[in-house]
């Protein structure tokens, strides 16, 4: 462990902890949100230091892009007027015991983890890799060995979109529309690049860091940027087509899972010779629908078609 490396990690983690504290306890909400966005930024660097490029990709697309945009949009929707105080909950008067409990819990956690044996599952995964159909171990685990978890995860996200959209129409931000002439030009320039890098990540998913999650998050960031620049969901798209796009990932996954049963009667047991194509198909379907679902989550509700809509 190179001393400079140790110093880099120490400073990185220290600033992460400070930013986390600021993100929760800053005096003013906007300051808290900005601190939290920077915390997300540094977390992506921390994943890089932990040799987890897949997670760094996803955290970069989500932490630096979507979470920040979501929080800022929510701040914009929370009007700062008198009714703001209604979001208070009863104050936990004796917070000291909670603090003590929290610290005791974490120190216990730390002590236990240091003593944990370290036989990870990496041998098991490496042994099973030849039949995985993909070279990247993380994608193999995600879409082949534990495809069931990914299926449920996409179902959870669809549930989140349904829950959020059932709350009613999209709540228009209360801040005045500021003229931003340069923005549409920027988005026209960047959007093809968003699509290109989304498919680049999807293609790389097979044999390197990448895959459906970072690609979906990046696609969502591109769509959200377009929405912010004034683009609006076209009229004929908001009805059934949008809902089909939302549910496409889950349906594709289920079709593959059930279709494969015809071969050996086992749910999600890819026949080895078809595994690469099936995984690629599932990955593209999952990536695209994650992108559309995350954008739907950012919108917060059915896009209204009134003039000057949610842009």
């Amino acid at each position: 462990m190179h001393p400079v490396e140790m110093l880099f990690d120490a400073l990185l983690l220290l600033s992460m902890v400070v930013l986390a504290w600021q993100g929760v306890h800053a005096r003013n909400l906007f300051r808290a949100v900005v601190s939290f966005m920077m915390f997300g930024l540094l977390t992506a660097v921390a994943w890089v230091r932990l040799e987890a490029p897949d997670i760094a990709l996803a955290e970069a697309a989500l932490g630096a892009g979507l979470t920040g945009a979501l929080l800022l949009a929510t701040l914009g929707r929370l009007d700062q007027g008198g009714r703001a105080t209604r979001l208070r909950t009863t104050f936990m008067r004796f917070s000291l015991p909670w603090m003590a409990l929290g610290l005791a819990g974490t120190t216990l956690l730390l002590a236990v983890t240091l003593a944990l044996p370290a036989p990870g599952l990496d041998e098991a995964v490496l042994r099973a890799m030849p039949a995985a159909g993909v070279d990247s171990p993380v994608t193999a685990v995600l879409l082949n060995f534990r495809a069931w978890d990914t299926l449920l995860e996409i179902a959870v996200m669809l549930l989140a979109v349904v829950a959020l959209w059932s709350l009613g129409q999209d709540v228009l931000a209360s801040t005045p529309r500021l003229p931003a002439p340069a923005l549409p030009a920027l988005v026209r320039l960047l959007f093809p690049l968003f699509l290109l890098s989304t498919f680049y990540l999807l293609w790389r998913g097979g044999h390197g860091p990448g895959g459906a999650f970072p690609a979906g998050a990046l696609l969502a960031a591109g769509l959200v940027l377009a929405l912010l620049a004034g683009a609006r969901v076209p009229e004929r798209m908001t009805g059934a087509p949008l809902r089909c796009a939302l549910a496409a990932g889950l349906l594709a996954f289920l079709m593959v899972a059930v279709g494969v049963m015809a071969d050996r009667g086992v749910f999600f047991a890819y026949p080895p010779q078809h595994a690469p194509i099936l995984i690629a198909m599932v990955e593209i379907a999952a990536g695209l629908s994650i992108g559309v679902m995350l954008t739907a989550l950012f919108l917060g509700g059915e896009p209204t078609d009134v003039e000057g809509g949610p842009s």
Partner: protein
Amino acid sequence: MTAFYLAGALFLLANVVVALARVLRGPTAADRMLSGALMGTTAVAVLLLLYGATGIEALIDVALIFAILAAMAVVTFVRRTWPEDADEDRPREEP
């Protein structure tokens, strides 16, 4: 050679930490967003230097995503946020 890259990355990280001061002190919301934008760019540079140190090519993809999303936070801030009360510095009862 890797020591040089790591030292460079450490230097940039120190820059990021110093830029935090502007987040806390910045009188207006725009100042806080500014330091956010600068941190984004510095994070891209840190990732590139870490690529130099470790040679993992995936780091360049992470830097590429950071570069594409550099505008995301600022655009959302300008188009959707800028709460009025974020401007004055006195510790007002936050919303």
